[in-house]
């Protein structure tokens, strides 16, 4: 049986920075903040589906900002998430061309704690392009690159999960896959700009 627990902010941030217990940490954020953030979107012209999509984007942005040390702990995780949520949703409304004056007026009164992170979270289409380009990579390459660069597995551990003969063969394959993806990224200047913002904020 799964043990459900809440993390204090400090533990939550430490887990994200170290990449440890990510699944439990993400679940804790859902349990602690999903309903509140969902309520905001649904009470500002959004549907339930909008709220769910925005929450996922907010969560990804939050984790990336923490990993880039952009979350300095000047506010609570809750306040930070609520600001990201508001910012992301209002940008989405503007993109849809139906942002209400009332919402803009309301937004001007808010404290923008995340302004220096604006580049990281604003480029919704750019991020969709990032996902698309990686998704277009072959399944084998995608698997090896994710195991190495996202799961942080060693070559030996990746060898155990694949059918290759040796670690060296896996290493060569990983190199080729990385170069293939690099070419695909470089073929799209807008994509590179998005990734640059993702890295540097």
């Amino acid at each position, binding site marked *: 049986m799964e043990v459900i627990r809440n993390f204090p902010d400090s533990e939550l941030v430490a887990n994200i920075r170290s990449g440890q217990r990510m699944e439990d940490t993400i679940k804790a954020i859902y349990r602690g903040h999903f309903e509140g953030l969902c309520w905001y979107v649904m009470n500002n012209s959004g549907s339930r589906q909008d709220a769910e999509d925005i*929450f996922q984007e907010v969560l990804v942005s939050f984790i990336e900002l923490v990993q880039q040390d952009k979350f300095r702990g000047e506010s609570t995780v809750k306040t930070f998430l609520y600001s990201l949520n508001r910012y992301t949703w209002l940008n989405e409304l503007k993109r849809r061309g139906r942002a209400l004056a009332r919402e803009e007026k309301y937004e001007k009164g808010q404290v923008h704690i995340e302004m220096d992170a604006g580049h990281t979270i604003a480029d919704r289409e750019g991020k969709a392009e990032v996902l698309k380009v990686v998704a277009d990579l072959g399944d084998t390459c995608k698997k090896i690159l*994710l195991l190495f660069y996202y799961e942080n597995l060693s070559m030996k551990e990746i060898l155990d999960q694949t059918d290759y003969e040796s670690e060296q063969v896996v290493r060569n394959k990983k190199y080729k896959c990385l170069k293939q993806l690099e070419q695909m990224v470089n073929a799209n200047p807008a994509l590179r700009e998005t990734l640059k913002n993702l890295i540097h904020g």
Partner: protein
Amino acid sequence: MDNSTPGMDEKLVSLLDGDLSPEERMTVEQQLAGNALLQQQYDSLLATKAAIRHFGLQQQVGAIHSQMMAELNAPVRKISPVRKMIRYTSAVAAGILILVAGFFAYQYFSLTPEKVFSANYQPYELNTSRGTTTNSLIEEAFRQKKYEEVIRLRDAATEPNIKNDFLAGAAALELNNLSLARQRFASVIEQNKTANTMVLNDEAEYYLALTQIRQKDFAAAVMLLEKIQQDSGHTYSAKVKNGLLNDVRKLSEQ
């Protein structure tokens, strides 16, 4: 791509993967600092790695999202009014049952021979007969609650006397000398049986049963109490209620 240094591309990937020794790393970083094209090449690798990590994170959040929506949106089953009423009634009934069971459990576990004895014992009192002016010494001592004197006078008597034996038994019971009380009451019953009389026999039987309860001889007490209860002409028949018999039986089960 910078082809001026053979194997540089592999070295940049090794730097990206954290596979270089500190010395190699320092050398490559120095080369990067002095070569804009090389730095651009490394930035390109960093961007590629960022793309993979972003994709991985998005996938992980997406997978957890499905799980969490199932958990957070778990439907709350609506209960029909009839089922709701049945549920409340059952809850109330269960509550009452627990209270009743608790009451009986308390009664059962808090039952002691002393409690049963105290609830049913009344010190024996001698009747005051009008016109009677002369009382024996033993009766006088009993009236004055000089119980040790009662026992001494009975032992000093030269002739056996049923009444003296009974008063000595009642005095011993007051003094909590249970074995003597039992002996004296039994003697009263025995003497009546021998003489075919009933002098203070009912009293002796009742007080003997109480003495046996206090002595924890529950089997003997139950037998005697049942005899008293079944004998409608017995002086103490009405006093031996089913409650008393049940209590003594429960004590014998403990």
